[in-house]
Every structure is written in C-alpha cells, then in structure tokens.
C-alpha cells in the first residue's frame, strides 16, 4: 500500500500510517483474502444489475442503462469530523431557505447591497411566478444536497449547493445495503451510524409541510418525468421506500381546486408532491407550454395554497453557480454567524479583472458554466489539451458572464479496490439534508463519489465516476 503524497489521503496519511478513523477497518482489511474480495466486487455488480440500480444515459440508445460502478472500500468519517460538517451544512441550508424567502419577498439582501440586483435580475433561475408566494411551512428547499470536498485534515470546502432536485440518495442507501449484505461481520466489529432511516424521515418531513387545508393524514406522492429519465430508478426507489405513489404528469389533474391523481377508484387528492421534474417542465400552463412532463395548473393550485411542491419552484436561484460565490455573505446576512463551511475561491468571469486572470491561468483552473449541470459545460484546466484550452478560452471571451472559475483543488483521495490492491482516487461527498418546519435532519454520511480513473478529478457518474459507501463512525 502506497500513498499518493501530493494529496491528502483519508486512509493513509503517510507510507503505511493509517489515519485513525480507518484503523479498525484496516485491521480487518489486511486479513482479508484479495481473491475473496474480488469475488465480492463481482457479486456486488451482479446485485446492482439484478435489482436494476441503473441510470439512463442521455443521448445514447433508448434502452441504454448503465451501472454506476461501486467500490467496496468504504469512505470513513470520524464522528467529530461529521459533527462539524453537519453543523456547517445545517447553517448553510438555513441560510439558503432564508435567502429564498427574502428573494421572493422584500429582497432585503439586495437592498442591503450584499448581492447585486443584476445577479438576480439576469438569472433565469429567478421565477417571477414565485414573487410573493409563501410556501406551506415557510420551506423552499425540503431536500438539499451539499457537495463537499476535502483537501486536508481540517479543510472542507463546499463546492456546490443543490437546492433544486438533488439526486443520488438512492445510491447512498443501496451502497449501505450492499455492504451490509457482503460484509455483515464488518458492521458487528465497527459501529457505523445508520442511514436507513432516510426514507422514513423524508416522508415525515414532507408530510410535516402539508398545506394548511389538508385534511387527515397528508397524501404524499413522487412526481417523475418517467422511465426514460436518468434518475428514474431513484424516483421509483424513493416512492417505494416511502410507501407512496410514483406519479407522472398525465396521472394528475386539477379536481376541485386541488391536484388529484387518477386511481382505479377515482381521483385522489395529493397534499405534498415531491417532484423530480424541473421548474421549466413543471407546469405547461405557467411555464414551458410544450412540456409533456408537467401538470397544467399546478402552479396555480400551489399559489392558492392547496398543495405543497417540494422543493418549491424557483429554488434554483439559490444554487446557481453565479450566486455561489456570495454564499458566505448570504449566510452571515441571515444567520448573523460566520459560515462554518468554507467556499472554494471563485473568480466571476463577468468581472474583467477576474476574466483576465482566468484566461492567463486557464491551465490551472476549473471553469464552470453558471447554468450548467453534470460537468458537461466544464473545463478541468490541468487535464485539458492545448486545443481544448484554446476552444474554451474563445467561449469565455465570447460570454464571460456565463462562467466562473476556481482553482484546481487538491481533492482528497480514498483508496479503491483494484486487482493490484488499493489505489488512491479522488472523492467528493454529497450529504443530504431534510428540512421541515421545526427541524432539520442530516443523514450521517451521504454519497461519496469517486473518480475511478487514476489522477482524474471528475467524479460525475455521467463522466465515469463511481460511488462508495460512506461511514460515519459512532463515537
């Protein structure tokens, strides 16, 4: 076992020196037979295929379903590390919700000059239809995924907030399930905080946000764009785990001023809709009229206070990459506290000086599109060819305000299991927070994404990333 010295490795802090959270695991690991583990790895893949834990790849043949590769070495976080992280996430999510309320009401933060008006005014993620709307329970983002990277023993940075419809939680749950099946003995030796309450908590937290006129037990449903969506597995998984219906737009109608689903016994009212359809496609009557995935009139029912939509429409204004660089100020403005979790240093290319710096140092930076997602519109400078750099520089010059740039972070590594033994790979972490009117619930751990290619910093599943089970140890 060797450690890549250039980066902080979460398991091996030096040659043969195991970091404390991994010590028990390492004791178990060195006694394991590599052949047995290889067999287990194959079993895991067969298990994922059999259970259909796949994602669809856009732009490929219709029936293309791919597995997100799973690595059997867990990513382990000590409880004290997690305590700090979760406190930081909680603070950040509180800030995001307060920001969203403010931005769709009095806009104190704009008046105070903390966030420039143009940033909101010129942002497509700002949804005029939400102006003045107060969602039930006052909550905008019921489910938040915060992307966090680590660069050193005490250095955690938030890379991105996902306040719209963060995905990946099904992998967090299935990864743990797989580990429990493959290595039950490990979990009796090492005490790991459970994640399996997530679906129960999600349902409870959604139900707690039911509209005031909901009678009896709130009816919760999950709205999916359909089986061809890349995250369909997750949609059906979550509906199944929560014990609620999985609906598509054409299952729903406006009935007596509410949204109701077509059942074999007639129409049944839905109180809380956990939607996994983007704002633009959510309501063809109010947004994109050509959308086939949406529910006509749902925005009106929402504005009349007759349904809860989770997450609320218009939350994208909080996780836009252009807003990101203001997040520490936003948190301080609403909570009165300094942000616990740091932001990555960010150059706004709309600013001429920053643009110049970015163009001069393109080969060392990561450049991201402000409205993009999934790593497609992104440039990883150190990994790009001269030609790619030149092409991207031209794009940057053409529309600088579409981009932000960040230094290439020395993302921490965690070993993955290979035929030749352990090998360090870069990881990030997406913990999931559930927000309800009186509480916030952050599942210990989250989804660890890992770049499977040696040296690669891109962890996105659409770009060859894999996942790991994430352990937060009990004390």
């Amino acid at each position, binding site marked *: 076992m060797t450690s890549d010295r250039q980066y902080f490795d979460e398991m091996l802090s030096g040659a043969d020196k195991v970091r404390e959270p991994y010590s028990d695991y390492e004791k178990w690991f060195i006694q394991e037979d590599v052949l047995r583990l290889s067999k287990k790895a194959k079993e895991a893949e067969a298990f994922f295929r059999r259970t259909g834990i796949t994602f669809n790849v856009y732009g490929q043949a219709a029936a293309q379903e791919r597995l997100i590769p799973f690595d059997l070495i867990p990513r382990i976080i000590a409880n004290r590390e997690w305590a700090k992280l979760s406190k930081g996430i909680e603070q950040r999510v509180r800030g995001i919700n307060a920001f969203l309320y403010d931005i769709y*009401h009095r*806009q104190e933060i*704009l008046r105070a000059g903390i966030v420039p*008006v143009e940033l*909101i*005014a010129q942002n497509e993620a700002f949804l*005029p*239809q*939400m*102006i*003045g*709307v107060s969602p039930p329970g006052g909550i905008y983002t019921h489910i938040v995924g915060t992307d966090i990277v680590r660069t050193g023993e005490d250095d955690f940075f938030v890379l991105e907030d996902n306040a719209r419809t963060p995905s990946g939680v099904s992998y967090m749950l299935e990864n743990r399930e797989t580990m429990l099946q493959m290595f039950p003995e490990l979990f009796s030796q090492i005490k790991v905080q459970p994640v399996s309450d997530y679906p129960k908590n999600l349902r409870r937290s959604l139900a707690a946000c039911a509209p005031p006129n909901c009678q009896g037990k709130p009816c919760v449903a999950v709205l999916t764009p359909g089986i061809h969506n890349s995250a369909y597995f997750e949609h059906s998984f979550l509906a199944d785990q929560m014990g609620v219906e999985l609906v598509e737009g054409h299952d729903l*109608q*406006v*009935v*007596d*001023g509410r949204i109701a689903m077509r059942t074999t016994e007639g129409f049944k009212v839905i109180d809380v809709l956990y939607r996994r359809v983007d704002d633009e496609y959510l309501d*063809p*009557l*109010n947004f994109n*009229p050509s959308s086939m995935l949406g529910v*006509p*009139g749902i925005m*009106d*029912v929402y*504005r*009349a206070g*007759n349904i809860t939509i989770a997450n609320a429409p218009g939350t994208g204004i909080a996780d836009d990459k252009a807003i990101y660089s203001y997040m520490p100020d936003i948190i301080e403005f609403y909570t009165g506290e300094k942000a616990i979790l740091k932001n990555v240093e960010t150059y706004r290319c709309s600013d001429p000086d920053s643009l110049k710096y970015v163009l001069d140092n393109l080969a060392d930076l990561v450049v991201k599109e402000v409205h993009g997602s999934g790593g497609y519109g992104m440039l990883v400078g150190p990994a790009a060819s001269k030609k790619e750099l030149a092409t991207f520089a031209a794009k940057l010059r053409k529309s600088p305000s579409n981009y932000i740039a960040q230094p290439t972070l020395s993302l921490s590594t965690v070993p993955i299991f290979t035929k030749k033994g352990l090998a360090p790979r870069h990881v990030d972490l997406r913990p999931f927070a559930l927000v309800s009117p009186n509480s916030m619930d952050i599942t210990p751990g989250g989804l660890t994404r890992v770049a499977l290619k040696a040296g690669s910093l891109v962890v996105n599943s659409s770009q060859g990333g894999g996942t790991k089970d994430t352990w937060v140890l009990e004390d």
Partner: protein
Amino acid sequence: MKLRIQHTTKYHYDAPVSYGLQQIRLIPASSKHQTVQSWAVDIKGGSTELEFEDQYQNKTLLVKADPETTELSVDVVGEVETHCSDGVFGRVYGTAPLWHFRQSTPRTQAGRGVRKLAKTLQKAPDILDGLHALSSAIIDAAPYSMTDTEAHTTAEEALSAGGGVCQDHAQIFVSAARVAGIPARYISGYLMMNDRVDQDASHAWAEAHLDGLGWVGFDVSNRICPDERYVRIATGLDSHDASPMSGIRLGSARESMIVSLQVQQ
C-alpha cells in the same frame, strides 16, 4: 365616471375536450383610480377551480372545462366608478420589485428596431417628454392595423411589420423603455369609446415608472394618457402575463372564439 361593462368570450371546440384549463384575468381591483361597484363572472361549460392573486396581484381564476364540452363561455358584467388620474397611476407598488419591470420577456425582447426606437428617449430633454415622444414614434412607425399581427407577435416583429393593435403598441413601448433602463409594464383593461358601445376586443396600454411620479400610463394606440374612460384589469411584463385568458387543453380539438364587448356610461 361610471362605466358599465359587459364582456362575453365564447370558445367553440370542433371536438369534445376531455380536459382543459383556462387562466382568467378579468377581475378589476379597486384603487385610488377606480372603484369596483359590482362585478360578476359567469362561466358556462366549465367550473371555477380556484382563485388566486398572481405575482402582479392580478385576481386570477383557474377554470376547468367540463369533460367532453364543446363550448366554454365566460360572461363578465360589472360597473366601475373611475376617478380622473391624468394618466398617473402613481407610487403604488405590489410585491414585485421595480427592477423586475426592467426584465425582458420573449415577447418584449428588443431587437434592432426597438433599440433604434429607444434612442428617442435619449434625445428628449427629460424622461417624461422622452416617453411621450417614444409613444408618438411607435404609432408613427406602426400605425393601427388589424391585419399585421396576431396574439403571439413580439414587439420587434410588430415593429418590423409596420403595424399593429393596442397589444403590439404597448409591447413595443415597454420593450423600448426597458432598453433605456426604465421600468415598464403592460396593462390590460377596458376603454370607453366616445363614438360607440360595441367593441371587438378589450384594450391594452403601457406604464412606465418615473422616480418622482411613480407609474405613468401611455395609451400609444390613441396617442393619449389613460383618463377616466379607462378601467384597469391586469398587469404584467407583457401581453402574456396580463392576458385576460390563457388556456391549455388535451386532444386535438381546434378552437374558435367569439367576443362580444360593450363599454358604456
């Protein structure tokens, strides 16, 4: 001035509609400039599912077509007492911030034509004069014409077509004002005409925001500022936002529409 309005919109579908929704913005609100004395909306062939205020505080109804209907009609009858305002609506603000009225929409996105027209504003000695000049310039460039445009025509398209109706004039106006950084909005409503009672369609005009005066109205089509003959119904960034009716329906039925409108003292 007391105005009596009777407005019927009748949709006919050439095949039964299994499911259809209409958003209806036809309810005026009382303000310093108008007092709604009576107002009734009657729907046939559909049912009112709910009522809400949109982001511009327009009272909006969501109406569902009765299953398998081939006709949907909306009857509005009411009386409004208007008070003279000299075209100044004033410093009355809703929840939407002023900067929002500087945002363009697909229908009011300025092109070369509108941007050229917006230069009128720079030449004038002050903003108010500039806006009046802009209003005149618009009606000169695109005189009233029923045949050049339709419901989805954008400001820029109407301008290059060289003609349009009140909707187009108001959209060109807000588009040009926003180019100059002036908050501007689209108003739909009714206008009593001195020479007739029966009208073909409801009316539309524009408002621009000036720091001292607040919102000031411009009826480009009639080359005047709104007075007591005007009843204001809905506000928005463009004709889509303030549209009296906008709908969606399942199936392939084609619709035709008949409007009957009387506005009188």
